[in-house]
């Protein structure tokens, strides 16, 4: 058994959850999301984020709007949609359950 694979699987699920969490506070530009994920060491390279954002957008969890920027071209600001909020609620609950289950076994 390769622990790297298991870790990658865990991180992948958590990463999607965390993107939604970050966006639930306020709408964000991709670089803001990257910065935050970097700080908590969930992301190593930026290229991993863009496909995830696009997938979540296609699934109807996110929407985006264009906003002018002083430094360059207009930026895509992502925000949660109604169904994104409902989805996040579910994830919040299942996260709590998971943490509890794991903690009970670890005791």
């Amino acid at each position, binding site marked *: 058994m390769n622990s790297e694979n298991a870790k990658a699987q865990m*991180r*992948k699920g958590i990463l999607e959850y965390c993107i939604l969490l970050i966006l639930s506070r306020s709408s964000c530009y*991709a670089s803001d999301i990257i910065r935050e994920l970097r700080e908590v060491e969930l992301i190593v*390279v930026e290229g*991993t984020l863009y*496909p995830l954002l696009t997938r979540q957008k296609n699934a109807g969890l996110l929407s985006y709007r264009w906003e002018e920027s002083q430094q*360059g*071209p207009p930026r*895509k600001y992502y925000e949660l949609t109604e169904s994104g909020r409902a989805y996040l609620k579910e994830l919040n609950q299942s996260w709590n359950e998971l943490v509890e289950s794991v903690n009970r076994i670890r005791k």
Partner: protein
Amino acid sequence: MKVTLNINIGGYAFHIDEDAYHDLKAYLRSLELHFTGEDSASEIMADIEVRMSELFRARLGTYRQVITIDDVREVMKIMGTPEDFVDQDTFSAKEKFTSSSTRRMYRDPDNRIIGGVAAGLAAYWHLDPIIPRVIFLALIFAGGLGIFAYLILWIVLPEARTTAQKIEMKGEPVNIHNIKESVKNEFERVRKNFKNI
């Protein structure tokens, strides 16, 4: 002194050193290849290019004008290569890497005389293209079967259009190093053609 090129990334114009250009082009192709099959591959690529243009502008600052190979390497490190995405994208990436290392038969438009069938067969079996050509000719004179076989292969075999297909045709695994080599060859060929005009 170095030759520079003008490129457009994410809607912004940049000057870039020739060597840096090769690396950047190969890198973008490798990403494109990685995201093929994804629903919105072009959108993902557009987002990535916009972000890269931002990173380049930040690195260049006000005084520097030309993107160097170091800039390209640094930005590649920040964005990550398809090999880095494997960690987060375990399944899709692994499948793609293994399936793309298989060899497939194509017509080779770069070395063709008629339809590129013989050249494609030669690339597939690593032969000199003269060998399949002689066989086709021999079959034509020995009753016309050669024409028939050639036409069927012409219809059946797809043409190797993209860099990935050309690499597949030769049976090399599709990865960033091979793409880089093949982009470089393509670029050299275009340049030679220009010189001949």
